[in-house]
């Protein structure tokens, strides 16, 4: 170009440049820091509450799950960040600058998914491991009683086949299923952030997208619970929140999910939901006027 002060590099605007721009964008607004702090407070704080209030008479059936339960609160705040990554562009009009700079819209969305997804994954895993470490430290300091000790105290003979299913009062990463559950909690949180981003790409409005996200993770389970039992049982295992519960439990199926999917099958399903949502979002983004 005759006016370019410097020679343009070869090639064209692509994913690498788009990701660099998204990275700068993500960290140049305060809402990112605040929502991440909020998520951390929710995940770790609820863990401290859930484990710190254990009384000697409580029997902990899954100490790992007990320490990770804050993920259910954290996902709501984390979802807001996922929504804002896209909806703030529409709310403020930045989308026009973004799409003028990078007219290939699928590249813009891909860059957002990769940059936010990477940040989300790192933050989620750090939070999951932190909550686990804190929670187990508290439980062990309180000499919490697990199902195994409880059963032994009652003097019951435990069939060998279910010995492995009984929990100690506190867990360590070396025990069966524990590492998977902690990693799974982080994965669940990260993928839900991306699901929120996908919803915002379709809906474009912050309030609308947050409502939809809350609807999926909080309201949908209430509706399903209100259905006739056999129908409710058939549907419950497909819900993101129930998939999440299985993902960060070490063993057994939580009461409210009959015939739950295995943790990894559930996770695959969650990824599928997210990909479909992002796919529809991409289609909408490319087709509709900005």
């Amino acid at each position, binding site marked *: *170009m*005759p*006016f*370019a*002060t*410097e020679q*343009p*590099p070869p*090639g*064209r*605007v692509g994913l690498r*440049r*788009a990701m*660099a*721009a998204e990275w*700068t*964008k993500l960290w*140049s*607004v*305060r*809402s990112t820091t605040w929502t991440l702090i909020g998520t951390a407070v929710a995940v770790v704080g609820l863990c401290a509450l859930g484990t710190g209030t254990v009384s000697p008479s409580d029997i902990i059936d899954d100490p790992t799950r007990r320490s990770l339960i804050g993920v259910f609160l954290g996902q709501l705040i984390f979802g807001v960040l996922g929504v804002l990554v896209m909806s*703030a*562009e529409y709310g*403020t*009009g*930045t*989308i*026009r*600058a*973004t*799409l*003028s*700079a*990078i*007219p*290939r819209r699928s590249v813009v969305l891909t860059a957002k998914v990769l940059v936010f997804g990477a940040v989300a994954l790192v933050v989620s895993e750090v939070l999951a491991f932190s909550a686990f470490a804190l929670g187990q430290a508290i439980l062990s300091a309180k000499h919490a009683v697990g199902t195994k000790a409880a059963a032994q105290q009652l003097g019951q003979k435990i069939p060998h086949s279910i010995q492995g299913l009984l929990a100690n009062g506190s867990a360590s990463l070396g025990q069966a299923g524990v590492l998977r559950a902690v990693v799974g909690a982080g994965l669940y949180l990260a993928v839900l952030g991306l699901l929120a981003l996908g919803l915002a790409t379709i809906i474009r409005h912050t309030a609308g997208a947050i409502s939809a996200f809350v609807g999926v993770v909080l309201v949908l389970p209430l509706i399903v619970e209100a259905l006739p039992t056999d129908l409710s049982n058939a549907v419950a295992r497909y819900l993101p929140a129930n998939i999440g519960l299985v993902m960060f439990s070490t063993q057994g199926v939580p009461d409210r999910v009959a015939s739950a999917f295995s943790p990894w099958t559930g996770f695959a399903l969650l990824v599928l939901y997210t990909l479909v949502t992002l796919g529809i979002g991409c289609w909408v983004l490319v087709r509709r*006027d*900005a």
Partner: protein
Amino acid sequence: MIEARGLSKRFGNVVAVDDLSFDVRPGTVTGFLGPNGSGKSTTMRMIMALDSPDSGRVTVSGRPYHELPWPMREVGGLLEARSIHPGRSARAHLLTLARSNAIARARVDDVLELVGLTSVAGKRVGKFSLGMGQRLGIAAALLGDPGVLLFDEPVNGLDPEGIRWVRTLCHTLAGEGRTVFVSSHLMAEMALTADHLVVIGKGKLIAETSVADFVAGSSRQSVKVRTPAPHQLADAVTDAGGTVISDPDGSMNITGLAASEVGELAASLGIALHELTPVASLEDAFMELTDEAVEFRGGS
């Protein structure tokens, strides 16, 4: 160079742009003139591939916008004021755009300097005045040092000094050989800023001409007159077939008679004239041309 051919766009039942074709050439300032709601912004958005036309096509430097390898290095656009996240600093906003098009970081400070925002570069945009927001939008447009510039209503919200700054900037950019396309609904502003005009109304092309030809071609010329005997002159003008409109400031606007005819009429009746000015304003020409094509009228 911008080439639009048969551009059409409708929103529901409303035809926003209707079979619009025009060229915007380098080296001059081309004004894009039309009443509010006539389709100027939609056209500019179609040039930058933010809206897709229902039919027709528009190219920049011979290519559709979305095929430009580094769009910001070829086209700079200021579309609608305030399209910047209020929580982001001016510098961060520009840095984001610079990174997307592989533009050197140093250029960010250059354009901030150019638009006079260096001292507030680190401030959040939400605290900016409308005028500062416009300057930041112009800085973003200039970031890639592009050969084509699109400014949609750039003087909106600017103070007189800011307006003159934009005007000078447009002339400078065009003088460097760039293509400068500036929209406005203010005809007087266009008369001072633009060399060429693309005039639209109701989304249709009304005229594509130079500013001088546009004014000269206007048939509705009026004569502004000041006299100590307004009633006497008004009667005489009316008898001679002219129309008189009294302005609140005491002057009279006469149409239907040439200035020379008004002068001779006054002389023949011995009426003193304090002012006799033929008025052929762009505004009149514009009103005349768009009269049939105004989408929204005032209450009167």
